[in-house]
Every structure is written in C-alpha cells, then in structure tokens.
C-alpha cells in the first residue's frame, strides 16, 4: 500500500514537473532569456559539493537542478536539458515499473511449481518440480530465438516505453481489401535494431507471460508425461503456438484490428492475458492431456473416476499465495508504465485483481461446502486462481463491482468445469489446469465484452480506435462480438494447432512414459533421483493397486 502511495506521489510529482516543463517551453518562445536566467539562478543556488559533503539527513539537498545532465557545460543548463531529463524520467519510471512487475510474474513460476507438485503424488514430485523448472529455460530460449519476433516484431508504437520503433515490421495479408496482421518479423535473438533498451524491457515482460502459459500444460499432464516430449512440446509452444496468438491480440495482429478494420468495438481486448496467456495455456493443456491420456487408476472400468490425492496441501496453499502475489505484476504491470495517460489506473487494476481473487475463493469454497459438505482446500486454491485468471483480461476496463462478479462466477465455474472435464470428457487433469486456465480464461475474455464500463482511457484510444473499451452492459454489443471471435480463435485455432503439434510429437517421440515407469513413479526412471529420498512411501489405495496390476497384465 505504501509503495503504491509512494508511486502515485512520484508519478504526480513527475506530471507536475512535465507540465512545468511544457509551460516553461511555451514561455521560452516568448522570453527565452528570462527562463534561461531562472535556470541559471536555480543552478547557482543549488547546493555545492562542499555542502553535500556534510551529508543530507533530511533529503532536501539531494536531487536538485545540479543533478540534471548538461549538454554544453559552457552554456550551462538550458530548457532542452530540462525537457530531455523530464522525458528520461517518464521512460525511466515506466521501465522500472514494467521490469519490477515482470520480476513479480517471473516469481509466479515458483508458485506454479509448488501448486502442481503439491497436487501430485510424492513418487512424482521431482519430475513435476523439474518440469516447472525446465519449462522456464525451454520457453525463454525459444522465445529469444524466434517467439518474441513472431509476437512483438510488429508492435511498434507504445509511447510508454519510448516508442519501440525497432519493432515495426508486421507481416500482413490482404483479405477482402483489408490488411490483417499475421506475425511480426523483427526481434529474432534481439539482434540488429532490436538491440534496444525499450525492446529489452518489453521482451522481459512478454517473456515471463509466455512462460506462465507454458507451465500451465505441465500441471494437466503431470505424473505420466515423458520428460523428453515435455521439453520438445514446451520449446515449440514458446516458439510458435503462444507467440502467434500473442501477436494477433497484442502485437498489432488481426484480432486487435477488428475494431479498425470491421468496426467491432475496440478490437479484441485482453488487458493482461486471460485469453493470450491463460486460455492458450489451458486449451493447450487440454490438447496434450487428450493425447497423453489419463493416469493409470484414474478411471474405473465403468467410467467412474477415483480421486488421486496429492502429497502436500501446504505446498499447494503457499503456491497459491505466491501466484496471487505475482498477479500484482501480471495485471497492473500490463499498463506498461506508471507515467502516461491512464496509467494511474494501476491502483484500480490492483484492487480489481485482489477482489476477483477473493470472490473466486468464496465462490469455490461456498460451492464445495454447500454441495459436498467440506470447504475443499485444493478447490479453494483453484477458486482463488480462477478468479485471478478471469479478471486478468478485464482488470483494466472494469469497476470493482464488475470484478467481484467476474471472480465469483469464475469460482463456481471452475468447480463445475473440473467435474465436466473429469466425468464427461474423461480427461485426467491432476491440478485442474484446464478448468482454472482454460474455462476461466475464456470466461475472462467474454467478461470484457460484458462488464467493461467505458471509463478506462489509456491515451484516448485502444487498438487504434478512439474511446474507451465498453461492454454490452454499458452499451456496446460489438465489443462482445470481438471477444467472442477471440474465444472462437482460441478454441478453433490455438487448440487445434496445439493438438496437431503434440500429435506429431506423439508419433515421432512418444508423449507418455511406459506403464512400468508410471507405476514406479517418474522420479527415479525419468529424473534419476527421488524428490523425497528419505520418505517411506505409503501403500497405494486398493483401487490403484488393482488398476496397476491390470495395466501391467
């Protein structure tokens, strides 16, 4: 809270300095000598090095006109020097904000690792932790060599980060006389013109988002996914699957152009990634889980399912809190700055994020408690995450009432979806990733088209369309259509692309470990080391032993 207050104070101060600078520049046209004199006076009154050598316990002497770099020491400080410093300060604030938020999102990997490993059996803990660990490297490397270029190679124009003009080449096709962006072309290896300070910042921020999507899949396929297949699948997802949709939504691609090209609201709007990150991850998880198949013992011969209990609920709960903490980087950080038009909405975005997580938890706990008799811990955690996933897309466009409703719906939806995925689709998802990220990610995308209240104004336009993002409940039905087209693309294209890609991997590499490996636990055969070598494993339940016996036979 103090940090947010301090940040607000700094941003306000900066805005005042910028306004003062603008006024001074305007005055300079009329009376340059007067302004120049004022600056020289201020420089003359600045504390000397001898004064500063005595220390500055009150902080009043540090940070004065003498700290403004001067281009020509003979001429002394000029208005141009001050204006340049104001510009540098604005970009510096935005860089710092975006980077720190990116660091928070990176830390979410630890939360995912704890949640997923905690929900798996102890004999697979090392393997699950290792997947969550290695997916970071796989994704980062793939994104560096090509993924970033595909996603953001044509995303120039963000003034918050200095314009990003080195990312200005979008490959487009022309259909029915309209240009539609398909993929970016600049930025492979961050070489050539993208060896640029702004490009580095946006790379780091987008990269950690991408890695979040990748790590979702590891949860749905835990306890039977061959490590080799996982590694190849993750590299290809980081290189192609995620960046393609990321470009269409955030990189100036055709979904973002739905507003300018065919008049659908402000185009597809996904503030921080319910669709781009979570639905892509959740639907890819569904695709891979369909191919990998359920764990031995998950389903009985009559089609009924068994609960396979995870080994560490404390890790799950702590992991959920780490994720909730990291989400404050995810959503408020997506302003890509704290010092620009509309960026002071970061407080509102942060509160929306908290609220949706809260009501999501309530939704899941109340649903489970009322219908099953117990406030199930793992579903409570999933409820928190469901609310956070759902608010990710609308967080920058809705008010607190909207965010509370979105989170509450997500909390109930995740419970219903888990039952549907397990009992009707017969898909085994040990951590509920398909429901949390896939179903609630899609809900988040749709909710923008319903709840966006038309008060957000990030520089006067969004996706090149003048005005604020406004949903159906506030008078713009066309925004909902844009969101539905985004959902259709996620289900129709992203899911299909992931399914085909992983089907090919299954044919060439094989996605699943052998029956013997699965029964023994993946830690020793796949990783060469038990997660908890000093543990004495409790015997498997009867249904599991019977299923294992049948599988071997």
């Amino acid at each position, binding site marked *: 809270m103090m940090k947010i207050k301090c940040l607000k104070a700094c941003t306000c101060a900066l805005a005042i300095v910028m306004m003062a600078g603008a006024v001074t520049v305007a005055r300079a046209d009329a009376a340059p000598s007067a302004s120049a004199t004022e600056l020289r006076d201020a420089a003359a009154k600045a504390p000397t090095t001898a004064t500063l050598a005595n220390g500055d316990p009150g902080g009043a002497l540090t940070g004065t006109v003498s700290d403004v770099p001067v281009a020509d020491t003979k001429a002394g400080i000029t208005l141009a020097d001050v204006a340049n410093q104001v510009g540098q300060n604005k970009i510096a604030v935005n860089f710092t904000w975006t980077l720190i938020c990116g660091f928070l999102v990176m830390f979410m990997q630890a939360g995912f690792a704890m949640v997923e490993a905690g929900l798996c059996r102890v004999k697979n803990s090392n393997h699950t932790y290792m997947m969550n660990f290695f997916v970071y490297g796989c994704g980062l*490397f793939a994104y560096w*060599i*090509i993924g970033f270029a595909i996603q953001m190679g044509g995303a120039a124009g963000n003034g918050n980060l200095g314009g990003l003009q080195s990312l200005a080449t979008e490959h487009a096709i022309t259909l029915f006389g309209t240009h539609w962006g398909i993929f970016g072309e600049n930025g*492979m*290896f961050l070489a050539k013109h993208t060896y640029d300070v702004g490009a580095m910042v946006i790379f780091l921020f987008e990269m950690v988002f991408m890695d979040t999507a990748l790590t979702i899949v590891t949860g749905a396929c835990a306890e039977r996914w061959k*490590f*080799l297949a996982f*590694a*190849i699948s993750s*590299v290809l997802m980081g290189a192609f699957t995620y960046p393609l949709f990321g470009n269409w939504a955030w990189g100036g691609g055709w979904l973002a152009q739905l507003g300018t090209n*065919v008049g659908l609201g402000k185009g597809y709007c996904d503030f921080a990634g319910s669709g781009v990150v979570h639905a892509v991850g959740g639907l890819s998880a*569904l695709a891979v889980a*369909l*191919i*990998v*198949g*359920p*764990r*031995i013992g*998950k*389903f*009985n*011969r009559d089609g009924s399912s068994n609960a396979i209990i995870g080994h560490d609920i404390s890790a799950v709960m702590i992991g959920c809190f780490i994720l909730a903490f990291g989400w404050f980087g995810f959503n408020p950080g997506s302003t890509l700055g704290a010092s620009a038009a509309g960026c002071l909405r970061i407080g509102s975005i942060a509160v929306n994020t908290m609220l949706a997580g809260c009501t999501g938890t309530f939704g899941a706990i109340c649903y489970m408690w009322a219908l099953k008799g117990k406030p199930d811990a793992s579903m409570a955690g999933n409820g928190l995450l469901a609310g956070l996933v759902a608010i990710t897309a609308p967080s920058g466009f809705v008010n607190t009432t909207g965010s509370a409703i979105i989170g509450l719906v997500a909390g109930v939806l995740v419970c219903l979806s888990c039952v549907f995925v397990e009992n*009707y*689709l*017969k*898909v085994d998802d040990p951590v509920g990733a398909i429901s949390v990220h896939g179903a609630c990610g899609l809900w988040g995308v749709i909710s923008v088209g319903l709840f966006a209240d038309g008060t957000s104004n990030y520089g006067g336009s969004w996706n090149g369309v003048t005005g604020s993002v406004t949903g159906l409940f506030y008078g713009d*039905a*066309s925004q*909902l*259509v844009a969101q*539905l*087209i985004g*959902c*259709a*693309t996620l*289900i*129709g*294209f992203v*899911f*299909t692309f992931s*399914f*085909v890609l992983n*089907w090919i991997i299954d044919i*060439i*590499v*094989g*996605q*699943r*470990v*052998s*029956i*013997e*490996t*699965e029964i023994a636990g993946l830690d020793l*055969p796949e*990783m060469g080391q038990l997660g908890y070598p000093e543990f004495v494993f409790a015997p498997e339940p009867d249904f599991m032993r019977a*299923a294992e016996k*049948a*599988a071997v036979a």
Partner: protein
Amino acid sequence: MAATKSQGKSFTLFMVGLTAACAGIAYFTTGVGKVALLIGLVAVAISLFEFFKIKPLEGRTGAGAQPAALKLAGVVVVLLGWVVVLLGLHLTAGVGGRMVMSIIGIAISLGGIFFLLAPASSKNAIWKA
C-alpha cells in the same frame, strides 16, 4: 525406457538445429544465413529421426492406441468452427448477425472437442479393458 543418454543427445541436437535454423532465418539475406538455415534444418531432421528410432524402447504405455481417423475428424470439425466465425465476419455486417455466427462457430468447435476428440482419445483406453 525412461530418460536415457540417447534422448539427451537427440534433444541437444534438436535445440542446436532449431537455433541454427532460426539464426539462418534472421540472417537469411546473407550467405552465412542460408548455410545456417540449411545446417539447422538438417540437424532438426536428424534429431527427429533419432527420436523416432528410440521411441519403441519406451515399451507399452498407459495411453493405448487411439483411432487416428476419428481424431482427424475431430480436428477438422474444431477448425471448421473457427472458419465459420471468420466467414461470418464477411457474410454479415450487423453486430447481431456476427454475434450469432460467432456463437455457432464456437459451438461447432466445442462439439468437435466434446463429441469427437474426447471420445476418440478414450476409445481404446486401458481403463476400459
């Protein structure tokens, strides 16, 4: 089979090949770029061949063999739903019409997942045996 040295070597070759291929694309206008692309693609192809060669060593898995034709039909239907939505953008200019087409498209795609791909993936599941 579990993890082996062969897997590790092939994966390393795959990553080197992919990196070289991407470097080749990035610098395709130069002669070195074209050579890098060629070398990268060859390396990726060799690694895929190696993956395929060692795949049988894994032995029997718990996934079971699933009908490819049904899976393919599912993939086509899911994709078809998306195409319907895209066509809907150009067939009608009204918000209501586009919304209806979008919902129809999503329903087709979901139908492909729920009624074709999911049953295909569990048709010969070992838990049914």
